[in-house]
């Protein structure tokens, strides 16, 4: 898995899950607490 994807990311490495396909080797991922099916 090439490292360039992570290195070219700027300081903000927190992405939403929608972009996760592209940036699989990012270390932090954010999801809305509301973003889970089956919860009111």
């Amino acid at each position, binding site marked *: 898995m090439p490292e360039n994807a992570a290195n070219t990311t700027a300081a903000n490495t927190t992405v*939403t*899950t*929608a972009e*996760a*396909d592209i940036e*699989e080797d990012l270390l932090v*991922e954010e*999801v*809305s*607490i*509301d*973003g*889970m*099916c*089956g*919860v*009111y």
Partner: protein
Amino acid sequence: MKLVEHFQHGLDAPICLTWELTYACNLSCVHCLSSSGRRDPRELSTEECKAVVDELQRLQVFYVNIGGGEPTVRSDFWEIVEYAVDHQVGVKFSTNGVRITPERARWLARSDYVDVQLSLDGATPEVNDPVRGEGSFDTTMTAMRNLRDAGFTGFKISVVMTRHNIGQLDEFKRIADEFDAQLRITRLRPSGRGADTWDELHPLPEQQLELYDWLVAHGEDVLTGDSFFHLNALGSTPLPGLNLCGAGRVVCLIDPVGDVYACPFAIHDEFLAGNVRDEGGFTSVWRESQLFTRLREPQTGGACTSCSAYDSCQGGCMAAKFFTGLPLDGPDPECVKGNGERALELVGAGADKPTPDKDHSRRGGRKQTGVPVAIGWGPPEPDRLPDRACDTSPLAGMPAPREVR
């Protein structure tokens, strides 16, 4: 590994969960996913509820969504909420607003870690009240005004999308903006009383596209509870969220009598994992139940695996398939490629479909003829509320004809 791959195998504790505190409700919405109305006499006691909170704290479940029925009609509701937040469990509760008086709104505005979600299914009474009952629009709007006047911003307005309100999406957004609240739209599922009204209420195919397009254009600050990932196949932009069924893997339901189900849309023996009153409590149900172990095994797409869209739709919603009589390893009834419609034709219009196990509906059952029955409390003034925190039906507490347990 992608995040969702971690979740498909399940976690040692839920990330968050739905907790229906009571089946009692002052309304009788025609699509109620929990078929609520009458209190179940076997409801968890205040002490049992606190014991559940203690377990959630130990498990580090950060957050519970408390609903029902109408959770605020329990006389110990506010006590339970305070207990939860005092024990590191955040609360969002889902309500029709009946008890959100100005004073209560001020209490909520002062409370840390308590969020409020108001249910609304029409931007006007004409659209809302046929579904939720006469006067229910006014009740909810009054609660919203009370919250705003108390300085509570950011509360949620939750809408179940139906054939009749998809055209009001912009209007719902406008209402949310007016109250500095956050709009949340969710999917109608054929669960509970929703099974009876599904045919008339579920969005039509062209409306699904309208909905998807609207979310892509406006969904930045609109919550969806991750309930529209079955629409992802309509375009190349995946909707925000985990986009997977979390039932039994990262979320679940605790019902008013302590039964633990995979999710609130699946109140049926088929998806019953255990009961919090069992030895080992909620923790052992979550970690060791046969049902959840099975759900955490690798799922094949079955009939859907050869479809190019499977990666984005994941085969849709388990509960939607189950209650429309479709096999769980096939297409969702609202499959955007039309595979669900074809599958339903195969099943046959008159086929027996699973019916919800629990029916706490008022007046003897789910079938509503004509205008839905509603008590219609109107604006939540303290002196207009019953002096007992339970429903006033003479059938309260009596078992429904089909109840066995």
